[in-house]
């Protein structure tokens, strides 16, 4: 086939594209584009009527410019004119422009629809296809209104060409997806089903997609498609591989059509008709048998196509969930894939087995693969595959293997990627609760979770362990003993202090008989953690102390002394101060009886679905999780389900945390256990900001965000691969901010490269006040994105959402390096010699600011490198060196910046031992001058 000069070369277009490709900088590109836009505009406006070719060429240029990412605000009219051209190529470009750049201008839509109407009526298959492609690509409501009734007619008309039928079928599918209400069902639907019998496999392929989409919405109308689909599938799977000619793909008969037919069958239950049912089973068995045959080709395309059909067949078998024999065969087949050398197949096998695990017929068969799955968890190199292994272990877990699976997940957690830790924590917490026969194991597991991954243990998890301990009196003594022991560790996670404070406050008496855990020892142990904790935890501990006064009169004096100290009674935090004052007063004036009543042991919590499960569902999307609901309600043997979770949960939790705060404002303490079950979601729009972000490349302090309510300032310091950022939130209003909370989010890629841990922040910010939050940052490996700080608070009645891109960039982890001229050049040459051209990155760019030597120097130093004087033979050039520290590696970087004051330009060259580092540093630094 002649390679070049296909069709109509548009010379002007090619030249223009070449020009753009030759542009050395973004600025030059913009300049070239603006020149072209001006040119095209003047051509379009000129008095001379343009011929079709020129019009086509200019429209095509505009399209190219748009696809480069620039805005286009004219040319639509010219494109519409092309639609009515007699020349195919002009019409084609017109349609392409309209498809990509559709404009809701009503006048134009009318013209476009007119042109489409003409082409649909033209009886010229090529023109009709163009029109149908355009409708399918745009798929707008206006088009649906205009054509939704014409297209079914075209689709089922006896004299329509095959290729037009194909386009019409998928065009209708698109309109049905975007505006289902406008696509009328009618007698055509019955005829569409019969397209499954069409001789032309292309027509069948397109029609199957359409029927599947329609059948999902109204299965009853398309019931007859089941028998036709089975018949068709049967003919395909039994055909010799050459029978289907060009529809055979790498020795696999019509793989796309097979997958689509199997998909269509998944809209329906197993066929009731016995002969149809057995015919389908035969098909599925044939597909399973083929998987065991030796491959007909070594090409990956062959195995992919074959296995695509196999996986879809397994999906259908799982969907039917009625043939134990097929389910077990499917499971065995997937078991083989678990150890396949292709990563893709291992991934899919793990994924598919997850659904198989929830079928009663195959659950046991899935369980036999436990060792393979555990080893996948330990050895797979790709985190997305490991994630699938975790999912599968979770799905295959039952009472018989829960201890093993929980233990394996816990040990994996120690080294797991940051991105999936929270999810594993939730899963372990759920499994431990669900399969706990004896609750001591449950308590041990949760405490282990806190020890291994305390930062990832969300409130839901530790609330839940407290609920369970409160509700089950057989485990309370054990829990008290275990937390007491765990608290002995010199450094323990704050979540453990919370659990410990709560449990000892309730059940410390159960272990007080042992002199090693006497009341005073318990109190001293808790209090030794007090000063390291955040305000909400301290509030909880104060409540534990007053509970101690009730439980152990002998330590009353000691605790009163603590409460009476200035650091409590005059604490700057209003909640802590209030608690100290009230608890102290209560302990002085209340009689023993009153104290005992007020500080009575917590009543059992009403039973409800675990909030952990809700959280996991939210995280994963419920569809992906096997149903784990059955026995979870039975924490204390009652299956009663609280109808009104909100009210029910407030009663017991208030007794503990807040019953003593007289005029309790919405406080940190109040939310401790109340919020467990209420879902804090809000529809308030998020204000996001990254405008100040570039300013922080070369400096560490300043204001990152400001609006009318809030100002956010930053101070940060970095050492090697670690950083600490102090974030200051200033309330600019004369009203208090309530429920102030923050979270740092990173996208999936970033969170495996950068670890940001946030310290708690005060939930209240008084009018005009400023609070500080500390973020600890760890650079695991080089990265290019930035984490986002999400801030939420209530101001007046409304919930405010703000998202700020945090200025944590790769260059923050620079350590400057001094070196001599000789060393520098030697290293520079070394990096030059081994490269791979990517290790050197060079960029030439126009100066955006005045070219001042001192400013440049300051910026380079701020960027993090050491400036090396007297290295470059040309004294106006800057040369710098530094090392990027990450947890995994260190990357040496050399850079050279050559200003050219005459041209007002710079040339920046970076050589590092790692391509991605060179790239990122160059991007960051070149924006600074």
């Amino acid at each position: 086939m002649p390679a070049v000069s296909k069709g109509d070369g548009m010379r002007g277009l090619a030249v223009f594209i070449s020009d753009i490709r030759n542009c050395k900088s973004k600025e030059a590109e913009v300049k070239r584009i603006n020149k072209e836009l001006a040119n095209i505009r003047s051509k379009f406006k000129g008095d001379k009527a343009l011929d079709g070719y020129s019009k086509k060429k200019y429209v095509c240029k505009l399209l190219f410019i748009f696809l480069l990412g620039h805005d286009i605000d004219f040319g639509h009219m010219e494109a519409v004119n092309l639609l009515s051209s007699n020349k195919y190529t002009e019409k084609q470009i017109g349609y392409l422009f309209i498809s990509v750049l559709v404009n809701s201008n009503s006048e134009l839509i009318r013209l476009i629809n007119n042109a489409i109407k003409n082409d649909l009526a033209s009886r010229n298959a090529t023109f009709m296809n163009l029109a149908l492609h355009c409708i399918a690509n745009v798929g707008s409501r206006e088009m649906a209104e205009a054509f939704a009734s014409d297209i079914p007619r075209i689709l089922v008309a006896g004299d329509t060409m095959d290729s037009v039928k194909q386009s019409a079928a998928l065009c209708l599918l698109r309109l049905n997806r975007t505006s289902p209400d406008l696509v009328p069902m009618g007698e055509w639907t019955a005829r569409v089903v019969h397209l499954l019998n069409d001789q032309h496999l292309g027509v069948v392929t397109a029609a199957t997609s359409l029927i599947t989409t329609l059948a999902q919405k109204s299965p009853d109308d398309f019931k007859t498609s089941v028998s036709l689909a089975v018949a068709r599938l049967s003919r395909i799977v039994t055909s010799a591989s050459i029978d289907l000619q060009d529809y055979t793909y790498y020795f696999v008969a019509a793989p796309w059509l097979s997958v689509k037919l199997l998909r269509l069958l998944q809209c329906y239950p197993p066929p009731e008709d016995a002969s149809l049912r057995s015919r389908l089973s035969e098909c599925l068995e044939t597909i399973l048998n083929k998987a065991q045959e030796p491959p007909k080709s070594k090409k990956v395309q062959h195995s992919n196509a074959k296995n695509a059909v196999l996986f879809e067949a397994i999906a259908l078998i799982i969907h039917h969930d009625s043939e134990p024999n097929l389910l077990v065969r499917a499971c065995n087949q997937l078991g083989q894939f678990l150890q396949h050398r292709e990563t893709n197949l291992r991934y899919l096998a793990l994924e598919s087995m997850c659904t198989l695990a929830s079928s009663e017929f195959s659950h046991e068969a899935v369980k036999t693969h436990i060792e393979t799955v555990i080893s996948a968890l330990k050895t797979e190199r790709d985190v997305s595959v490991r994630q699938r292994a975790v999912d599968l272990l979770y799905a295959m877990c039952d009472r018989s293997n829960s201890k093993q699976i929980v233990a394996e997940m816990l040990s994996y957690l120690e080294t797991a990627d940051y991105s999936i830790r929270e999810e594993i924590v939730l899963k372990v917490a759920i499994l431990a609760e669900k399969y706990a026969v004896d609750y001591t194991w449950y308590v041990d597991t949760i405490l282990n979770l806190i020890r291994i991954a305390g930062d990832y243990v969300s409130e839901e998890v530790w609330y839940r362990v407290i609920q369970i301990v409160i509700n089950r009196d057989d485990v309370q003594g054990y829990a008290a003993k275990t937390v007491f022991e765990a608290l002995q560790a010199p450094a323990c996670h704050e979540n453990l202090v919370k659990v410990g404070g709560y449990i000892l406050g309730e059940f410390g008496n159960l272990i007080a008989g042992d002199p090693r855990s006497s009341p005073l020892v318990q109190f001293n142990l808790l209090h030794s953690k007090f000063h390291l904790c955040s305000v909400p935890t301290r509030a909880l501990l104060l409540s534990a102390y007053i509970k101690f006064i009730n439980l152990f009169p002998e330590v009353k004096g000691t605790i009163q002394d603590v409460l009476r100290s200035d650091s409590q009674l005059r604490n700057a935090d209003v909640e802590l101060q209030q608690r100290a004052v009230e608890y102290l007063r209560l302990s002085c004036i209340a009689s023993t009886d009153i104290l005992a009543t007020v500080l009575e042991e917590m009543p059992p919590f009403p039973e409800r679905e675990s909030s952990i499960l809700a959280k996991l569902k939210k995280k994963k999307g419920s569809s992906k999780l096997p149903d784990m609901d059955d026995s979870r309600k039975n924490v204390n043997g009652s299956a009663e389900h609280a109808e009104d979770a909100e009210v029910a949960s407030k009663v017991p939790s208030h007794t503990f945390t807040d019953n003593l705060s007289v005029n309790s404002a919405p406080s940190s303490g109040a939310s401790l256990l109340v919020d467990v079950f209420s879902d804090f979601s809000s529809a308030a729009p998020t204000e996001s900001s990254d405008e100040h972000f570039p300013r922080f490349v070369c400096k560490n302090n300043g204001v990152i965000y400001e609006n009318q309510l809030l100002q956010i300032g930053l101070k940060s310091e970095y050492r090697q691969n670690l950083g600490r950022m102090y974030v200051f939130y200033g309330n600019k209003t004369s009203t208090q901010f309530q429920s102030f909370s923050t979270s740092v989010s990173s996208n999936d890629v970033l969170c495996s490269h950068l670890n940001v841990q946030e310290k708690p922040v005060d939930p209240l910010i008084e009018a005009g006040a400023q609070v500080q939050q500390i973020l600890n940052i760890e650079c695991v490996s080089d990265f290019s994105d930035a984490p986002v700080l999400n801030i939420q608070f209530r101001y007046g009645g409304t919930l405010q959402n703000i998202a700020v891109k945090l200025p944590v960039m790769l260059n923050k982890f620079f350590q400057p390096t001094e070196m001599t001229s000789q060393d520098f050049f030697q290293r520079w040459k070394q990096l030059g010699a081994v490269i791979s051209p990517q290790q050197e990155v060079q960029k030439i760019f126009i100066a955006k600011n005045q070219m001042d030597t001192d400013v440049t120097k300051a910026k380079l130093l701020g960027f993090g490198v050491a400036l090396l004087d007297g290295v470059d033979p040309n004294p106006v050039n800057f040369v710098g060196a530094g090392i990027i520290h990450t947890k995994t590696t260190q990357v040496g970087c050399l850079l050279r910046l050559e200003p050219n004051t005459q041209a007002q330009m710079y040339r920046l060259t970076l050589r590092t031992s790692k391509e991605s580092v060179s790239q990122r540093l160059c991007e960051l630094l070149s924006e600074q001058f």
Partner: protein
Amino acid sequence: MQFMLLFSRQGKLRLQKWYVPLSDKEKKKITRELVQTVLARKPKMCSFLEWRDLKIVYKRYASLYFCCAIEDQDNELITLEIIHRYVELLDKYFGSVCELDIIFNFEKAYFILDEFLLGGEAQETSKKNVLKAIEQADLLQEYINDKLSRSVLPPLCLQ
């Protein structure tokens, strides 16, 4: 399929096809995010990944990444072969296709895609039939012989 993106190893977008209605801003955001995510992955890694509530299927041919977003129920392996068949179509049409062919003849790349996929679904999987449709169209065009300077890049090397 919700969309298909072709981009280079340097992260330059070469082709974008959207089968769901999205604003330009949203499209740009998705593109930026996905290009970064995919480029950050090592060779030998699995060709599938979860992204938002979609599944991403991607494959690299020489300097170009082909990346499709499909829904939860869709078949990953057949999508991988959709990518391959599209590369075959381009290859057959251009004759050892390379990135430059797609840059300079972007409109052709779109036309071929439209013959192969419509509304995000396979319309015609026979290579012969797709190319026949495109060639018929080419025959309708006035023939301007114009040799472009071509091929400084390696072909996309079909395996």
